[in-house]
């Protein structure tokens, strides 16, 4: 790959072009700054990468797979079969790369923020500790690649935390990238304002079902928005626990073990279906919309019950709160223990399922005073 610079007298350094972050070449205790001059125009990622010396290591005839993943370190690339595979991968990557045009200016904006966040990502962890830590470069490369190939989401603060978990566990750029990418597919909405508000609203709705008294009290003082759940939900409680605990918590949350597999949830869903059959015959003989307020909500994920468990931990204090400072003060002083929180959240989950089952029976055999609305 040749890039012609013949007419250009001054070529910006890789640092100035944003190809590397200052923390990658200098001591992180020094000031951390991104390049100050944005590159212009639209380039393909290939062109962009071809300016990066590190990337060149992958485009030579004998690609160095070990820089991608320790799992590739022992692969013998000299066999004809492997050569064929490599040739195919090369063609495929060219196709993918050329398909995706990158708005370099946009990317540059993301890189600026990435370069501010990477050197402050879990630096107390052994894996990311110390000056010029090579794992920071991997973290950065993945975030830059992701934002280049996903221009709509780009980079948002908090992604660094999410990626760090994958990287520490896999210790592999390739695996961390793909896990991160697929995981973000599921949660990308949470990186938008509306998406996060919607998620926090689910906590509010769940609280309404489980503890109306507390929600009423908070609403009375205009505190019912539960904004303090933002960080909990976005990062899966990562910052509330030690790193090791946060990994465990993440694994539990992302397995959706209770929502998907518990007997209670299954029971509740079955009753829900039953109720629906009855309703259609009883209330809407001609067919109609299902009553929403009694539905077992599939979007009530376990993390929402975790939020609720934490609220229950400081319920007495919250009932005394009359302004947002008091609420945040109360939340700040929570001593959060993973084991206890998980147990409490599971109990709340079962309680919710049981309650829903009971309510569906009420619905099937409605009290005589109730009036049905369309």
């Amino acid at each position, binding site marked *: 790959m040749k890039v012609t610079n013949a007419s250009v007298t001054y070529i910006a350094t890789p640092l100035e072009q944003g190809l590397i972050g200052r923390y990658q070449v200098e001591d992180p205790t020094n000031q951390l*700054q991104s390049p100050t001059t944005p590159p212009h125009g639209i380039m393909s990622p290939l062109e962009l990468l071809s300016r990066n010396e590190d990337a060149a290591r992958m485009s030579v005839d004998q690609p160095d797979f070990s820089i991608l993943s320790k799992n590739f370190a022992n692969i013998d690339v000299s066999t004809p079969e492997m050569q064929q595979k490599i040739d195919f991968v090369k063609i495929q990557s060219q196709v993918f790369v050329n398909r995706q045009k990158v708005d370099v200016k946009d990317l540059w904006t993301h890189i600026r923020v990435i370069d501010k966040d990477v050197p*402050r990502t879990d630096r107390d962890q052994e894996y990311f500790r110390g000056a010029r830590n090579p794992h920071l470069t991997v973290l950065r490369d993945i975030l830059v690649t992701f934002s280049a190939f996903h221009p709509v989401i780009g980079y948002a603060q908090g992604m660094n*935390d999410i990626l760090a978990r994958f990287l520490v566990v896999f210790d592999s750029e390739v695996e961390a990238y793909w896990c991160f990418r697929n995981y973000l597919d599921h949660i990308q909405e949470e990186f938008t304002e509306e998406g996060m508000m919607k998620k926090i609203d689910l906590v509010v709705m769940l609280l309404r079902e489980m503890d109306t008294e507390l929600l009423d009290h908070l609403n009375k*003082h205009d505190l019912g928005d539960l904004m303090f759940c933002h960080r909990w939900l976005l990062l899966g409680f990562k910052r509330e626990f030690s790193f090791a605990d946060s990994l465990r918590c993440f694994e539990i949350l992302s397995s959706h073990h209770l929502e998907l597999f518990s007997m209670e949830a299954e029971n509740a869903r079955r009753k829900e279906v039953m109720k629906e059959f009855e309703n259609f015959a009883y209330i809407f003989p001609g067919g109609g919309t299902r009553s929403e307020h009694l539905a077992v909500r599939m979007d009530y994920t376990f993390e929402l019950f975790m939020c609720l468990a934490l609220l229950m931990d400081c319920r007495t204090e919250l009932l005394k709160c009359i302004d947002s400072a008091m609420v945040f003060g109360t939340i*700040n002083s929570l001593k959060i223990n993973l084991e206890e929180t998980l147990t409490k959240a599971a109990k709340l989950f079962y309680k919710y399922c049981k309650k829903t089952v009971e309510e569906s029976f009420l619905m099937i055999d409605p009290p005589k005073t109730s009036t049905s609305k369309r």
Partner: protein
Amino acid sequence: MMRRGKPVDHVDIKVVLLGKAFAGKTCLVQRYIHQTYNDTPYSNTIGAAFASKKLISKGKHVVMNVWDTAGSERYQSMSKIYYRGARAAILCYDLTDKTSFEKVRFWVGELQTNEENCRMYLCGTKKDLIDDDPESRAVSLSVVQSLAQDLQSDIYETSSVTGETIDEMFDKIAADYVINMKNIPPTTENGADESVILNEYSPPVHRWRCSQC
């Protein structure tokens, strides 16, 4: 304005920090509240953080409720929830990053539109970097002064590493508030029961002051 269950001469001030990502907001709050710099694992702020500090200003017991917002531009309108009812806003910019001052202008507009009773304080951060290398200054004092003049607000060039000018800034915020509280209608943040307007509101007029003068 009094609140139930609190001492009679006690006032709460809601102070909000706004500014671009990596402007140094969290470190500033750390320095002010705990008198330390960077001794806890430090990371970007998600949502907002809250901290408070008690002090005595003009003979009044004052509780500074400090809201440290995320600099991320993605959740900009969520910030409204955090600055709602704020009596003081510290608009932070990184003295070594010109674009961070552009963001200050944005916040000025937001606050002027939505929070007319919120007094603004312009706060340059990372002054220690400028002291080490005067060349690294990217936001000149004169540019900030012209904005400060328009807003009739104070300028503070601070360093969370050394603690320079940080206590002065918060002390001034407390003093301004205590002096002006009679002129400001009570906050409506917590519902109608506290929104009785006692006096006609007259905008407080005071001169801007450069912290270096």
